[in-house]
């Protein structure tokens, strides 16, 4: 898994390539934690390069969303979600909990 983090003016963008499973989810959690600990709560998760996400990765998503949405200070939004992963998000009941955008530009524009 490769993870990239870009801090923009209005939000932070996380870009991951590869698999998010129990082996790699801790790295994802670390990057997300660093962002919220810096007091930044508006996050775009660009999933364009994600091949696979297990419940370990979904735990990071939901945990980060809870922190960001507290006090209405921000939120995590998703962009470029592959069809297979979208099916997984639907099964997990995640689709009502995240705004989902077709591309990263639209997701960044949300903030």
């Amino acid at each position, binding site marked *: 898994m490769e993870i990239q983090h870009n801090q923009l003016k209005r939000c932070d963008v996380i870009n991951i390539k590869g698999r998010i499973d129990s082996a790699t989810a801790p790295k994802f959690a670390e990057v997300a934690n660093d962002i919220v600990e810096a007091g930044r709560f508006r996050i775009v998760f660009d999933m364009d390069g994600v091949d696979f996400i297990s419940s370990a990765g979904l*735990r990071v998503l*939901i945990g980060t969303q809870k922190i960001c949405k507290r006090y209405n200070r921000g939120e995590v939004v998703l962009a470029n979600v592959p069809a297979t992963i979208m099916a997984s998000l639907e099964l997990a009941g995640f689709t009502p909990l995240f705004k989902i955008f077709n591309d990263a530009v639209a997701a960044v524009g949300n903030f």
Partner: protein
Amino acid sequence: MMPSPQLAIFKGEFVWMQTVIFPGRYDSLAKIAELVQKASQEFGLDPLAAYGVETAVDEACSNIIEHAYGGEGKGEIEFNYRIEGESLIIKLQDTGKGFNPRKVPKPKINVPLKQRQENGLGLYFMHQWMDEINYETTGKTNVLTLIKRKG
């Protein structure tokens, strides 16, 4: 290089079968996923169904490492798959602590964010993505069988 599947006789029929033993570590998950993708392809699953099987096996193996063995590097996972007519049958064996799948609570899916639990999706995914799941403990070995049917 992964070993190739072997033609074997199972219940009087010729079937393609392969067994590989992986160390019970999280970095085995990507290698197991490769093997699952190959099995799904041989079986002829569409990409969505194949993704589902990959998820079910990943969750099962993560559970073995985390719950049965109580951490990484404590034991092995024996992975076996066979294609039997219209069924892809994946068998995972470990020698860790057994569990009763009926005692695992179902996650609450349709609840607001604040009430949403962060755990419990693994077994739920296995049930959702596979057609049949069997779990049994024989002696010191736990055997989880995941079955995907065509169509």
